[in-house]
């Protein structure tokens, strides 16, 4: 187990190193620098600006310094918000994004599991069809289309929730719903398929032959076995959420990482783009690692045979 984690962490670090390197050199290829907006500067002033960002040194030296900074958690200084370190910009904006992400992941998967469960238990009934339709729509309709619809109906027309911005819990409702549709639909689909398969398996017949109640069979024997594989789709779900935050935060003007990312792309703020990229990557690899470990912990078949799958 320890060896397994070590190996995984090692790969994680390689991946992150590659992303950091890749994004560093890509950004070097990019047109534009902190100077382009300030054309009228004298040579001396330009020199000062370049020095401030460490751009006066040769690229390899810049690269080494960049990596050195990364190890200490220094992501450089933003081109635009003068003297603000990128890490500070990101830390300031992490809160809303994490809150949105957590809320939509939790509500989305719980609701999805419930939908999938209901669909499987009432297989081929009206509830099954309804939940299947919800799942297909949820995985198909782009989140930004859905967000627009929510904003239009519940904020503009009905005025039940604020149209945009951040502050109270009410502000989080619409963006959370818009974000949670995808995890919900994915969980519903997956739970339904797994549950139908599990409920047809022999050990469910064994449980029936013991004289257990149908509800006991569903919850004690069926659900647990259906949910274990659900962990595997949590990775794609997390990616979906990250992609979602970019547009959802923009639509609802949420001051989070995603909105920041889109803005920095628009204004060519390279240090911030690189910092955000790295942050997304770290979150992603950590989530994937947690998911894999969770799988090992939860499924007794894997835990005790040492990675049989």
């Amino acid at each position, binding site marked *: 187990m320890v060896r397994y984690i070590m190996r995984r962490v090692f790969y994680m670090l390689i991946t992150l190193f590659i992303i950091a390197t890749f994004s560093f050199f890509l950004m070097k290829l990019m047109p534009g620098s902190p100077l382009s907006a300030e054309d009228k500067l004298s040579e001396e002033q330009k020199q000062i600006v370049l020095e401030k960002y460490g751009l006066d040194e040769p690229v390899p030296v810049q690269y080494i310094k960049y990596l050195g900074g990364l190890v200490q958690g220094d992501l450089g200084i933003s081109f635009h918000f003068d003297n603000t370190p990128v890490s500070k910009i990101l830390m300031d904006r992490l809160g809303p994004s994490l809150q949105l992400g957590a809320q939509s992941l939790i509500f989305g998967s719980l609701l999805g599991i419930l939908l999938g469960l209901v669909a499987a238990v009432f297989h081929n009934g009206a509830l099954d069809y309804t939940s299947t339709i919800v799942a297909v729509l949820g995985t198909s309709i782009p989140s930004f289309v859905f967000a627009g619809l929510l904003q239009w109906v519940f904020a503009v027309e009905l005025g039940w929730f604020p149209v945009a911005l951040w502050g109270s819990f009410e502000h989080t409702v619409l963006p959370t719903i818009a974000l949670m549709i995808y995890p919900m639909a994915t969980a519903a689909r997956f739970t339904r398929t797994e549950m139908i398969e599990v409920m047809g398996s022999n050990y469910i017949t*064994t449980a029936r032959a013991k004289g257990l109640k149908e509800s006991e069979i569903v919850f004690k024997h069926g659900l647990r076995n259906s949910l274990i594989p659900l962990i595997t789709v949590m990775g794609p779900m997390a990616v979906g959420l990250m992609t979602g935050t970019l547009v959802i935060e923009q639509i609802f003007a949420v001051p989070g990482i995603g909105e920041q990312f889109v803005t920095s792309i628009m204004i060519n703020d390279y240090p911030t783009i690189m910092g955000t990229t790295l942050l997304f990557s770290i979150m992603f690899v950590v989530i994937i690692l947690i998911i894999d470990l969770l799988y090992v912990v939860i499924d007794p078949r894997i835990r005790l*045979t040492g990675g049989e799958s």
Partner: protein
Amino acid sequence: MSKLLEVKDLKVSFNTFNGEVQAVRGVSFDLNKGETIAIVGESGSGKSVTSNAIMQLLPKPHGYVKGGEILFEGEDLVKKSTSEMRKIRGKDISMVFQDPMTSLNPTMKIGTQIMEGLIKHQKMSKEHAKKRAIELLDLVGIPQPEVRMKQYPHQFSGGMRQRVVVAISLACNPKILIADEPTTALDVTIQAQILELMKDIQKKTESAIIFITHDLGVVANVADRVAVMYAGKVVEIGTTDDIFYNPKHPYTWGLLGSMPTLDSAEEELFAIPGSPPDMTNPPQGDAFAARNKFALEIDKVMEPPMFKVSDTHYAATWLLHEDAPKIEPPASVQLRMQGFANTGNKVGDQ
């Protein structure tokens, strides 16, 4: 001996996209207290469906009992409600399934799986149920039961898992134990162990056993009586001696004849040609006629009734009609029958 279970003219059908499949078409047999009856037949002959019908565990909504009665201690199980049936399942009638690899919940500890039924039916406390579960594991011959209780199915071998399944089915001292091909998926040596175990346990608990199998070799070893099924019907029923020493139905001849024995090296195996009929559209007359070397013209138009051979022995073949041509079993089968008698392969006890 009082009748514990009486199955009367049981008919079970399945609705499929190709129409109604008549899996069981009027099966009758009975079971006495402490007795072992074996139901023998090819796959698709309806033997497992019969047992599932007794448990009222037919796959819903496709499978249903179309007619007949299943009287358990005089009460018709077909008419029982789901909740009434739940009180019988696992308590009075329990079941051992064919595939030990898949019939245990992979993510639940063995102990919990055994205790479930005890807590449910006997209203035992957790502590008490745990003690009883350990006893049961000990009874079915699993060493270190305290340790094994806390393990998961994948930590057990196939034979050990089947012992666990047997332990689960025995938990509440059932009056009837239905064993649906309990040894088919196991190695031969393990098969013998499980059979021994079941015989042993029967002596201790006095449960009646319905033993479903396609293996006549197993039958000789465990059963008091045998019912041979073909195409959803019982074609011959009798004591084990009747079936092995004096079989009357050509299908039984076929089953006996296709069973290799130690001294069968020089003999020719008597194989049954073809495959069982399509049960969406059962043939008119005797369903076995098409594969029967000894078929009579009447088999094509009229179904044979159960002819009485002796008080314990009945067979459904026109060959037993007084006016039918006298046909003896094929030489190889006769030899086999003699073999059984000579080697003193006495049935039922060993």
